[in-house]
Structure formats: C-alpha cells, structure tokens
C-alpha cells in the first residue's frame, strides 16, 4: 500500500500530563499530522496500548485527541507495518533540521527521532524520554552503520534506542528514596531512573568535596553523589558507612580504603580493598 502520510508521530504512553498537552496542542496545529499508537516488534501496531493511552487522557486533552484519532484510521495502519525496517542511515542525519522544519516544541524534541521516508518527513516519538536522552546530535553515519552490524535482528530504530539511550522500567512510587534507588543494580539504569522520576529530598550532605557529596542511607550504607568527568552525568554510588568523606568514598569504590562489611563479589581483588588507607595519587581521569 502506498504511503499516504506526510508527517507521522509514533507515540507511546508518557504519564506526564504537561507532555500530553504540549504534544496535542502542537499536533493539532500542524496540518497532516498523524498520531499513532506505539508499534510493537517489527512495526506492528498494538491497539491495546492505544486503549490505555485513551484512559490516561481526559477532559481538555481528550477533545484534541479525538480529532487526531480520526487521522489514523484506514490505510495508515497497514502502511506502517515494518516501517522501521525500511530505515536508511542518511535519513537520520538531518534529524535536527527536520525537527526544526516541523516546528517541534523543545519539550517534545527530546522525545523524538525524525527522519525522511520517501522524501517526506516523519517523526518517531517514544514513550520513554530516557531512551533518547543521549540526543540526536550524537548520531552520525558511523554509529548508524555500526548499529546495522551490531543489531541485525531488530529494526534500526530499536537498535538506535538501545545504543543511545537506556530503557527504564516502570517504577512505582516516585520520587524514590536513596535506599530504593540503591536496589537498582545497574548504576546507569539507576542514574536514568533518578533523572526521570526524581529523588526524595536527601537533606544536607554529611560531607562534600571536589569528589562529590556524601549522604547517609542506613546503618551500613552511605551514598556518594558523583559527577562523571567526561559526560557530566550524575551518579549515585553506595559505599560502606565507614567512609567519612566523598573523596574517601570515591577512592573506596576503586579499591582503596576500608574493607566492606561483607564480601559479595569474590572476583574482587581483596588485596586492594583490605589494606589501611594509603596515599593515593590520581594521575589522570576521563
């Protein structure tokens, strides 16, 4: 079936009401915008998700949404099957320019990936901001080619999300406490969850220096808030309660300083962690 649309938004189910309002206001004002429910694997459209989405959008928002729904009826649905599989690297290169061309509000840009299909602009809007937070600006032809090689079994869009963002799980009860955050085993995932859902007020840090800020968690654990020197991203790392400063905490994470209360990872070189604090010189970092 021939592709009839000019501008397509594939959206998910973000829960933020302000986001939905911004989306609908913009989409309603732009002619020939088609708002679609999320596609599943291999580009199939899942109606179930759309039904959930409708429940979340009520009162003022729903009035706009109804008009948009009319646009997605008919051939659009079948036309879009397998759409991501038809991606070509060069379509992604002008993503930022295309967003400007579509007059996408800033608040929506970070959720979206734009491309050209058959000379026509289209846009993908994900349900998870974290997937795309690394930014379209980082995408270049080299990385796209690498994605083709690296993820042969999935669509390029899926691969791009995997490589350039972090998929975050649905989290109940937000914002989260430091202890809850610490239960997320992957530090990158933890960072994205904190960036997305926020963190309950942590109070005044117990200590603060050029290495970061140290906070209390419970009787056995403190948490150090650190910033990556290369990316500027902020991470929360747990350390033993015996750590007194952020410097001591960061050095402990690299094996210098007091021993932890219990060894869980037997691969860890014990000779590094179970010695007295010593003079430690950081030669360089990135």
């Amino acid at each position, binding site marked *: 079936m021939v592709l009839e649309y000019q501008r397509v938004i594939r959206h998910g189910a973000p829960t933020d009401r302000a986001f939905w309002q911004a989306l609908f206001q913009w989409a309603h004002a732009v002619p020939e915008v088609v708002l679609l429910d999320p596609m599943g694997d291999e580009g199939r459209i899942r109606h179930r998700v759309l039904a959930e989405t409708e429940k979340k959008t009520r009162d003022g928002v729903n009035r706009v949404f109804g008009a948009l729904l009319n646009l997605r009826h008919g051939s659009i649905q079948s036309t879009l099957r397998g759409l991501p599989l038809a991606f070509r690297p060069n379509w992604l290169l002008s993503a930022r320019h295309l967003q400007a061309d579509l007059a996408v509000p800033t608040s929506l840009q970070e959720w979206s990936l734009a491309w050209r299909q058959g000379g026509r602009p289209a846009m993908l809007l994900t349900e998870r901001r974290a997937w795309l937070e690394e930014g379209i600006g980082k995408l270049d032809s080299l990385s796209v080619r690498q994605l083709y090689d690296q993820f042969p079994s999935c669509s390029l869009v899926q691969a791009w999300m995997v490589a350039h963002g972090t998929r975050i799980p649905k989290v109940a009860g937000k914002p989260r406490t430091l202890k809850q955050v610490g239960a997320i085993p*992957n530090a990158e995932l933890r960072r994205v969850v904190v960036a997305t859902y926020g963190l309950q007020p942590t109070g005044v840090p117990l200590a603060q220096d050029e290495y970061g800020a140290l906070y209390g968690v419970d009787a056995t654990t403190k948490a150090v808030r650190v910033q990556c020197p290369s990316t500027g991203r902020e991470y929360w790392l747990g350390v*033993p309660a015996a750590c007194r400063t952020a410097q001591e905490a960061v050095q402990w994470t690299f094996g210098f300083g007091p021993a932890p209360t*219990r060894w*869980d*990872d037997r691969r860890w070189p014990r000779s590094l962690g179970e010695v007295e604090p010593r003079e430690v010189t950081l030669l360089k970092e*990135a």
Partner: protein
Amino acid sequence: MSQKQEWIRHGDVALVRAAPLGRPLTQGRSLTLAEGEVTGHAHVLVGDLEFDQVAEPTFVVVRGTAVLTHPEHATLEIPAGAYRVVRQREHWGGVQRTVLD
C-alpha cells in the same frame, strides 16, 4: 603502613600501578577492560600490550604507550608500565557489587 598508590581513572574502570607479575602473559594489541551492561559501550585499551588472558582482565602491561578508549569518555594515553585493572565497586545494604552501566 602507608604506601604510595598511583592510578588512572576512566569512568568506572581504573588502572592502578602495580609490580610486574613475574610470569608469562598473553601479548596483544587490544584488550577490552569492561563492557557496559545496558549501554553496550566498552573501555578498550589499544597498544602494545601483555595481559592475563581471562574473561575479565585483572592485569595488563603496557609496552611503549597505549590509549584507553570509550565512546563516552575522553581517550586517555596510558604510559608504559604494569597495571592492575580495577572495576569500580559499590556497597548497598551490606552487600558489595561491581558497578555496572
């Protein structure tokens, strides 16, 4: 007893100056020190190297110079010498684990 310890940090991986192991090592031009779990990004040391051939390298000798690369971190030049490869660790609720990204 206090002893001087020099180290180089690259994200969640560190190279800590160490004494040579005194046993034969595998020679190579490239060594992946750590791979990201969700990001898929890796810290890769490239140069004239000798290392212990294990799934997660713990020791490497740099002959001449080498560079340590990662898609999201600045590339660092690593001077010649012997290093212990240290993965960053953390500690939550009395349990220690390796930092994963």
